[in-house]
């Protein structure tokens, strides 16, 4: 080629895109890893108080949310399987289910947080001020970790909504669905983190 005309747009590398996505997910994993390190330190330091404080959490809601997230992971995978087989409508159905399940997760989360706030169990809250240091830290960790996770769920909803638009406009199709795969990877990561958050906060009794 002796001209400067060759164009980047022709260059498509799904493998490279996936690699980039994975590398990004690693940074997310380590971001939460930092929080888990903190959790370890404080759990060693305030073991008793952690058990005491965990009784305030609602196990039933936590379990339902876990099941919701796991199911949303499944629908996500099925959506990708469907597009891989060329069934656009099925894929759209599963993707919408994923988004709805994610919204459901957020609604339940909101109820849970709301209950804590109405009991004064939030940083600076009246009830929390009466508790021991360890319990304050427990709730601090709880709000920060589940809060950051919820933020990721929200980002996930936004990403998946974009995917839905791409899917409707055929920008994601049978031959090119790396975007959907990348979005799926992100969504599974959100699930993955919750798999650890759930026992560390709700199953402490």
């Amino acid at each position, binding site marked *: 080629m002796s001209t400067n005309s060759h164009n980047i747009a022709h260059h498509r*590398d*799904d*493998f490279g895109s*996936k*690699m980039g996505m*994975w*590398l990004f997910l*690693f940074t997310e*994993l*380590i971001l939460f*890893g930092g929080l*888990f*390190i903190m959790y*370890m*330190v404080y759990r*060693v*330091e305030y073991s008793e108080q952690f058990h005491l404080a965990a009784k305030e959490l609602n*196990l039933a809601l936590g*379990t339902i949310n*876990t*099941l919701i997230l*796991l*199911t949303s*992971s*499944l629908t*996500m*995978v*099925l959506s990708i*399987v469907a597009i*891989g087989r060329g069934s656009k409508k099925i894929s759209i159905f599963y993707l919408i289910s994923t988004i709805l399940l994610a919204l459901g997760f957020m609604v339940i989360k909101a109820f849970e947080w709301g209950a804590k706030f109405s009991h004064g169990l939030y940083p600076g809250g009246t009830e929390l001020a009466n508790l021991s240091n360890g319990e304050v830290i427990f709730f601090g960790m709880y709000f920060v970790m589940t809060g950051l996770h919820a933020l990721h769920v929200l980002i996930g909803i936004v990403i998946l909504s974009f995917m839905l638009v791409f899917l409707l406009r055929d920008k994601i199709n049978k*031959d*090119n*669905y*790396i975007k959907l*795969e990348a979005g*799926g*990877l992100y969504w*599974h990561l959100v*699930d*993955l983190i919750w*798999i*650890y958050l*759930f*026992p*560390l906060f709700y*199953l*402490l*009794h």
Partner: protein
Amino acid sequence: MEEKPVHQEHKNSPGYGYNILIWLTLISLTCVSVAVAGLDLGAYILLTALVIATIKSTLVINIFMHIKFDDPIFKLFFSLIIFTLFVLFVLTAFDILYR
């Protein structure tokens, strides 16, 4: 450049049924871990909870996230990250456990 044909790895990736099976396993593991937490296991509460969580996450990573069916380099990268995280935990523990 080591160009790979588009979506070649999906030839051996699982279909609907297999994924649903994995989902059922995940759901039952969740139920097991909730049930086990009700028992009075003392010091083993954390251990059992973490073991179950690890089994669940392994399934999600391998099947849902396709690590099992993808190029081995992702497996390598992933193990590298998990190993690093593990080392970070151990080294921090050297401080807090011996204070």
